[in-house]
């Protein structure tokens, strides 16, 4: 009999208590946002769609090899052993795990999952799966600067001028070694330190032309300016043509 009345009192008391809690929350601010219009701030280093800094990439296949699901396909031709004529660099988001491993192994820090200009893009909403295999290339074939460089070499050859040896280039690149320390401590492949980090000076297997570096940097801008998304990144790279400049990852701290 006692439990009978205790039950009645208990149920009324706890119901009122619960209603107090819900009423208290009635006045709390909403925690949700109207998603597509309003975005939550993304922290630095979040994992979303990839961006590729095509000018810097040395086509070393490390990202494709570390990928647990083999979602990265890359294909390029080496022209004159140092210029890359891109055919394909695609990430298949049907498979991608967003595990960040490809970013960490990159010796040149040229593939990223956080958009450096802050245009967060991470939603994989589609009704057509074939659209999820995304090509990250901004242009196929040689970049404009490379085209000019190759043309120049060809013209030189035709004229009988020998290409200067690579030795002075290695000397010029030396000061950059200190700055080329990868920012994230986790990824530190050995060969990364041997080459200048600066984006504009296109490092191709040790052969480097110091005289061409500034001009390349100047021309990198129009080449990369076509698609808007990567423009700031490319511009930042162009600015950091100075070998003493800090490595690329630190330019997107803001």
């Amino acid at each position, binding site marked *: 009999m006692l439990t009978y009345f205790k039950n009645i009192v208990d149920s009324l008391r706890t119901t009122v208590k619960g209603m107090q809690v819900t009423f208290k929350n009635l006045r709390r601010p909403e925690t949700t946002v109207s998603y597509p219009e309003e975005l939550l701030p993304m922290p630095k280093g979040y994992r979303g769609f990839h961006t590729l800094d095509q000018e810097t990439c040395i086509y070393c296949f490390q990202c494709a090899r570390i990928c647990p699901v083999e979602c990265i396909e890359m294909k390029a031709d080496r022209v004159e052993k140092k210029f890359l004529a891109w055919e394909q660099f695609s990430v298949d988001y*049907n498979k991608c795990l967003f595990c960040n491993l490809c970013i960490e192994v990159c010796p040149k820090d040229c593939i990223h999952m956080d958009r450096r200009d802050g245009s967060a893009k991470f939603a994989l909403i589609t009704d057509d799966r*074939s659209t999820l*295999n995304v090509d990250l290339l901004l242009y196929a074939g040689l970049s404009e600067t490379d085209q000019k460089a190759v043309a120049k070499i060809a013209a030189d050859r035709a004229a009988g001028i020998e290409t200067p040896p690579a030795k002075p280039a290695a000397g010029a690149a030396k000061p950059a070694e200190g700055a080329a320390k990868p920012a994230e401590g986790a990824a530190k492949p050995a060969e990364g330190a041997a080459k200048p980090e600066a984006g504009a000076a296109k490092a191709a297997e040790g052969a480097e032309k110091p005289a061409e570096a500034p001009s390349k940097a100047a021309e990198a801008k129009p080449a990369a300016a076509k698609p808007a998304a990567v423009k700031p990144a490319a511009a930042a790279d162009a600015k950091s043509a100075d070998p003493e400049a800090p490595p690329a990852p630190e330019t997107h701290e803001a």
Partner: protein
Amino acid sequence: MTAAEILATLEKDGQGEGLALFAGPQDPALVVPRERLRAVMTHLRDARHLAFDLLVLVTGTHMTEKKDAKSQAIVREQHFEVIWHLRSVRHRCVLAVKTKLPFSDPEVDSVADLWPAANWHERETFDLVGITFRGHPDLRRILLPDDWVGHPLRKDYVYPREYRGINLEVDAPWPTP
């Protein structure tokens, strides 16, 4: 208690017949011949000074033939191993019990009546590795469909190309851009 101590205890209890110690670099294990498995397991569970009352894991492994790199002599025959990990709540220790099964006859006694927890583990081992547990109350596939062919965790497993009209080709079926 370590595996060596447990082996000594078992020998003292008169259960040591045929037992051996597998001394790996990390976790040593008790190696039990499959004929004696139930007796040893029952003792491990019921003896108060052992009291392995929690069956943690049942693992089946397909060990392939291994040859010495230089002499080409066979250092390991192809066989199956079943490993039971037991935990004693009272004595705060974990023990691995190993049994080797010949490749041609992967059958071992079930311990599902000693630890009901073994029921699903043994079904899974049967499903994925293809080891039969004698005396299991309900030995059928648990994770894979009933009509699946083969046991995927065997090293010689061949991936099917198709299952009931579903294309299982490894290559992506969607086109590249």
